[in-house]
């Protein structure tokens, strides 16, 4: 792979631009050093936010409070439906309410280590510091976190940590946190400081003189294409797990906003860092449209096992204890079932590859028998009732009576648009927050950290840092009638016409399924150079066929769900290739990126810190040109680079 070499003259050394000095002082110092926009001037600035999940909604509400004029766009019919809503398990915060030895430094350390030393130290430390404010904010908004009988907040433990720092609201923590942010957003809408555009999809970024100045959108009900200008643009558009077709993401989750920004010059960092979540309900049939996650919190009480025999077709209850292999407890005695997600997923794959999955297939058991025996059915029901109910609904099997069957599934993408310490991309004015950016989780995200990061970015980081951009760049007010907007709008309309004109014989979903299979087979839980090379070729072929033979029914000027999906799949067909390129170039294993060529004798991810202790940020060079691989070196001053061990 020499794509980066061919563009060597264009390769940039990227810098986060963060403060230096003692890590615990950096964010404070930086906040002091940043320029402020005075309150009277804030009302002169318009901020465009795309996405209304935890990051987008919290940022919009907070910036509206500060006085900015905010426009928020989401493809759903209501901002409350963003996929943050589906996060189940919880949110981490270094409150140390349990007095079990937690601290900001420990959360920082666990996150950097959990991310397999591929995250930026300053960002992660800031995240850990802010985590405590998030809980305060959420509780004040009325988020009904679980409580103890004394009325104080309860915590549970999560994978990759040995302390209980996860706050939760039954198995619906994401829902409750999002509703808190959504309510704050609705309040801001009521005040007139936020204008909401539901059922509206961003289809392009408008860049004027190298600065992101607005977006082009399509109204999903009327089909109307519009340009919106602002003084800054914020993408809070989530991740791209749906490139795998089957994932735990919502059906509408897509990479279009991020991909369009990439094609306008924003760098896409570490696209190959994807998280395959260990506890999902296994695939049932070809018709399957999505995979359902079972919260990682279940691993607190559930024990993961498979038969020690290959192709064992006995029912779970007929397999005696002596013939069960509790492989996580066996291999990782100190973390046991609570190893990080990448480790748990990889090991599930190993035992299934050995033919020891349930019935010889692709599933392992997650068993509550012992927990129910120990705590009683009621205690387990109080903790996981809704998850058990959901599992029962989907599979028609009662997890109180028989163990759950689980298998890993694409869940989260640590990669995303490159941002600096201020959460601004390499394009001035374009800010990226939440899952859509790349910064805080390295190559593997720990459980209960996504909610933390989304809200940290939205409530407590971006509202300050965007002020610095506005105060230093002083972008001029510009209307959507500026030639750059008119041109971008025309381009989008042309693209839509191009898609609608396709009346081939293969459905959009059939292409998406094929892409998903290529990605899952070659760029999934484990990757190798040969597979990645063939995936790149296969994706190119598939993309060619897509534009020749896809069937897009209906008109552009009305609600047309086929057109919506076609546009998203077209972008996934490009993004998938970049993911494979990134995976191929990163000649090491780290976190969720596992290259078979690079592993320890025990089959753990083997990093190459000499060559790859950096973030790779890809720059678009044109339709037929190879993208350029820019590099941001990662320095570890506070956490020593070691081989990760959860034994």
């Amino acid at each position, binding site marked *: 792979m020499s794509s980066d070499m061919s563009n060597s003259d264009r390769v940039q050394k990227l810098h986060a631009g963060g403060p230096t000095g003692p890590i615990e002082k950096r964010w404070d110092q930086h906040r002091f050093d940043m320029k402020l926009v005075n309150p009277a001037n804030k009302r002169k600035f318009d901020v465009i936010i795309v996405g209304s999940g935890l990051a987008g909604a919290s940022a919009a509400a907070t910036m509206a409070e500060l006085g900015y004029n905010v426009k928020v766009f989401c493809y759903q019919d209501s901002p409350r439906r963003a996929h943050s809503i589906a996060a189940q398990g919880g949110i981490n915060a270094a409150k140390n309410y349990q007095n079990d030895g937690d601290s900001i430094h420990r959360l920082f350390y666990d996150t950097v280590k959990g991310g397999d030393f591929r995250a930026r130290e300053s960002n992660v430390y800031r995240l850990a510091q802010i985590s405590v404010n998030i809980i305060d904010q959420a509780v*004040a908004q009325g988020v009904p976190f679980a409580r103890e009988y004394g009325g104080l907040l309860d915590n549970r433990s999560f994978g990759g940590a040995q302390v209980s720092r996860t706050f939760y609201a039954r198995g619906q923590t994401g829902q409750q946190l999002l509703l808190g942010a959504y309510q704050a957003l609705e309040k801001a809408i009521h005040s007139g400081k936020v204008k909401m555009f539901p059922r509206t999809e961003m289809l392009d970024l408008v860049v004027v003189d190298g600065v992101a100045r607005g977006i082009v959108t399509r109204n999903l009900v009327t089909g109307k294409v519009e340009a919106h200008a602002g003084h800054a643009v914020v993408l809070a558009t989530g991740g791209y797990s749906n490139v795998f077709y089957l994932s735990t993401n919502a059906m509408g989750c897509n990479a279009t906003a991020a991909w369009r920004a990439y094609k306008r010059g924003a760098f896409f960092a570490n696209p190959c860092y994807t998280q395959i979540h260990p506890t999902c309900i296994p695939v049932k049939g070809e018709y*399957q449209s999505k995979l359902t996650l079972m919260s990682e919190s279940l691993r607190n009480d559930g024990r993961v096992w498979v038969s020690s025999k290959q192709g064992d077709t006995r029912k779970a209850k007929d397999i005696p204890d002596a013939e069960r292999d509790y492989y996580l407890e066996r291999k990782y005695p100190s973390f046991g079932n609570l190893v990080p997600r990448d480790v748990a997923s990889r090991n599930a794959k190993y035992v299934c590859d050995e033919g020891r999955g349930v019935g010889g297939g692709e599933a392992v058991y997650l068993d509550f028998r012992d927990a129910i025996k120990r705590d009683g059915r009621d205690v387990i029901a109080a903790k996981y009732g809704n998850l058990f109910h959901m599992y029962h609904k989907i599979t028609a099997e009662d997890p109180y009576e028989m163990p759950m069957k689980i298998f890993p599934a694409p869940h989260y993408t640590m990669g995303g648009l490159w941002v600096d310490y201020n959460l601004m991309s390499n394009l001035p004015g374009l800010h990226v927050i939440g899952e859509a950016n790349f910064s805080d989780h390295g190559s593997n995200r720990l459980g209960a950290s996504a909610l933390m990061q989304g809200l940290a970015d939205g409530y407590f980081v971006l509202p300050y840092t965007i002020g610095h951009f506005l105060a230093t760049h002083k972008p001029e007010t510009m209307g959507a009638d500026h030639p750059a907007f008119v041109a971008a709008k025309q381009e989008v309309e042309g693209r839509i016409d191009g898609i609608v004109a396709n009346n081939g014989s293969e459905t959009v979903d059939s292409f998406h399924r094929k892409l998903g299979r290529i990605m899952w087979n070659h760029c999934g839980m484990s990757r190798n150079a040969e597979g990645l090379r063939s995936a790149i070729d296969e994706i190119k072929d598939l993309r060619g066929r897509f534009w020749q033979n896809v069937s897009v029914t209906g008109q552009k000027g009305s609600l047309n769900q086929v057109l919506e999906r076609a546009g998203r799949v077209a972008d996934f067909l490009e993004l998938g290739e970049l993911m494979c390129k990134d995976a191929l170039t990163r000649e090491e294993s780290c976190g969720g990126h596992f290259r078979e060529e690079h592993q320890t004798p025990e089959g753990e991810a083997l990093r190459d810190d000499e060559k790859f202790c950096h973030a790779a940020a890809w720059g678009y060079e044109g339709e037929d040109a190879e993208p350029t691989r820019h590099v941001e070196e990662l320095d570890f001053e506070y956490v020593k680079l070691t081989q990760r061990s959860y034994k």
Partner: protein
Amino acid sequence: MNLTLHVWRQAGQDDNGGFQTYEAKDVSPDMSFLEMLDVVNEGLEASGQEPIAFDHDCREGICGMCSLQINGVPHGPDRGTTTCQLHMRSFKDGDTVVIEPWRAGPFPVLRDLVVDRTALDRIIESGGYISVRTGAAQDANATPVNKADADEAFEYAACIGCGACVAACKNASASLFTAAKVSHLARLPQGQVERYERVVSMVAQMDQEGFGSCTNQYECEAACPKEISVRAIAQMNRDFLVASLRGR
């Protein structure tokens, strides 16, 4: 199994619309209801016909985007279940299934089975929140909350805003939706400051959107995929009465 579907098709807001009949063949009992529709739609698309438009997103019963009146019941025959979590094992071979959009004046049909539910957002907008500036919060454990209150608040807060309560009510009342938010916040100490202003504003907005009144039939509770209790409505009524008498 094979099913006959009678589906409401409507090209746009101004179109009259009508029912169309489709055959769903080789349906697996393990499919979700929406996956069954996906298969029907792929068949339509492959033959160049426009697929049936319906709202859906997370497909795990939490986003509240999916809807559908299925054989006369919102979200179909299973209690406590959204359409996306309804599985075809709840149907029999040869069944006829009538699929309609949710009907309510404040929920205009946009296309086929897709309706506009932004009226529900406007109800929240009118007061369904606690006003707290970002950063102004005290320590989370500074105010203990009785566990029973916190748990009850959670039950109400579990509302996914799908609108099944409106769809089920013979008066198309949004009382359960509105009351769930009123009661969630009324149960918590943090919600007390704005408690009475909130209920007055939210009820006024609910009326203004054109939803009907509650006649205490509790069809909403039966249709609610999160099984939110109509006790929420009693709480809303009480708070509204107190607020009115106090002149809030």
